[in-house]
């Protein structure tokens, strides 16, 4: 039986009286893409921040590669990376300088080759020497994705990775993610508000509502269970229910 690369058990996070994540448990298997869906405030970002060690859980456990995150932070984060539309990189550095800093931070060998490869893969040649401040939002998203891919992680956390990309680049990014998963067994935790993308990318989907998992399964299983026409209708139903 294959061991999960990520195992989350009874994860809970409270901020005072407010519980952002409530008794959440799930696994990610090697090479699996797990979609994390939910309306704003459902607890997706808090969950992701706990998985990255940026927020300490109130209770529960997070294990990656068989190790507890609380006690093996460095070993785990060396093999993990993330990208989000909502993060930035140092704006006064060039794209290439930013990638070099990341490569050094993770102690990567053969930095020049890796930077050249990732720049080529993400079609960033034309702006690799550009100051990050001058990038468009789409170029910035590609830079944060490049930073995530550069370290060749075993688990990738992606928070709306294609939100600010044009359809062509977004399509290429999805193709790249699938290729990485196929060639290197990369596991991905994926959030998006684009339901078509979610259906296309995810092997399994977890629906969060008010910090709790309310549905789990393949996109088709979830659509059937909620008796809706597609994933978008399921999302609307859950989102509107949670606002009642």
């Amino acid at each position, binding site marked *: 039986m294959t061991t999960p690369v990520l195992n989350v058990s009874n994860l809970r996070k409270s901020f005072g009286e407010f519980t952002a994540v409530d008794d959440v448990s799930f696994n990610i298997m090697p090479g699996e893409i797990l979609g994390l869906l939910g309306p704003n405030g459902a607890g997706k970002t808090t969950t992701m921040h706990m998985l990255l060690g940026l927020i300490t859980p109130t209770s529960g456990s997070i294990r990656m590669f068989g190790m507890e995150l609380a006690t093996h932070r460095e070993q785990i984060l060396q093999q993990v990376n993330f990208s989000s539309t909502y*993060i930035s990189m140092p704006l006064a550095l060039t794209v290439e300088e930013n990638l070099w*800093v990341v490569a050094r931070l993770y102690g990567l060998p053969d930095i020049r080759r890796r930077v050249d490869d990732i720049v080529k893969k993400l079609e960033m040649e034309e702006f690799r020497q550009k100051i990050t401040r001058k990038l468009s939002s789409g170029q910035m998203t590609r830079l944060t994705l490049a930073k995530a891919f550069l370290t060749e992680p075993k688990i990738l956390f992606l928070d709306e990775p294609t939100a600010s990309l044009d359809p062509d680049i977004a399509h290429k990014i999805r193709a790249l993610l699938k290729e990485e998963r196929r060639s290197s067994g990369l596991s991905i935790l994926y959030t998006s508000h684009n339901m078509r993308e979610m259906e296309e990318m995810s092997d399994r989907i977890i629906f969060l509502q008010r910090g709790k998992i309310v549905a789990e399964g393949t996109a088709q299983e979830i659509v059937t269970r909620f008796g809706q026409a597609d994933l978008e209708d399921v999302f609307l139903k859950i989102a509107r229910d949670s606002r009642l």
Partner: protein
Amino acid sequence: MKLHRIGALVARHLYLYRRSLPRIMEIFYWPFLDLVIWGFITLYLAKYQPQIPGFVTFFLGALILWDMLFRSQQGITISFLEELWARNLMNLFASPLTPGEFLSATIAMSIFKVTCVSIVMGVCAWLFYDYNVLVMGLWLLPFVLNLVVTGWSIGVFTTSLIMRFGQEAEVLAWSMVFLFQPISCVFYPLDVLPTWLKAVAWVNPAAHVFEGMRAVLSGSGSPVTNLIWACGLNGVMLLAMIAWFYKTFAHCKVQGSLVRVGE
């Protein structure tokens, strides 16, 4: 502690200096301006207050040493603020970088800044006022080292406060150190303070360094006792501030404020 991670952060900050005039000004322009303005005021006062022997030597020496402490603190706090302004803290702390490595990198940047500022001020003092900073002899080295460590303690303390209270506490990066200036007895001896403030100044390592500096420059005694006090107090203060930083870091992770600190 991995050197490559510390090196990565230092490289990230050095890249900034390559093309940023305001950052270069912070190292060269402000210390230069400080020295020119206060140096000429000192010359003016010395002309009309001849009863204080070695006035220029005391004042310029103190000014240069104080700037080293100030830049040492800035090296730590501004490095943290750079990450805050760039909204880069999340990238850093979601990587294997440890808080200790982060602090070490800011300390390395502090050493870089102090070195640059010392050279600028030393050369300018010599050119403008014919003042040789090496007049303190070998004592200069332990004086500078102690002041740099005091600057680190204040810098780590200020960084913790900014991390805890967010960008609204940013002003502390420039103002906190001046809270320590009156009790550092930079330009006057400890004796002039009222008794209660004297007791407060006594636990400030910088006050012992400046007392020692005056002893050396006036030739009135050895600064060994002052330096022993300064080293002891610096050791305690730095360890306490590092512990406070770790505690604040853990608190911010519990509160979830580490990911929101730049907002």
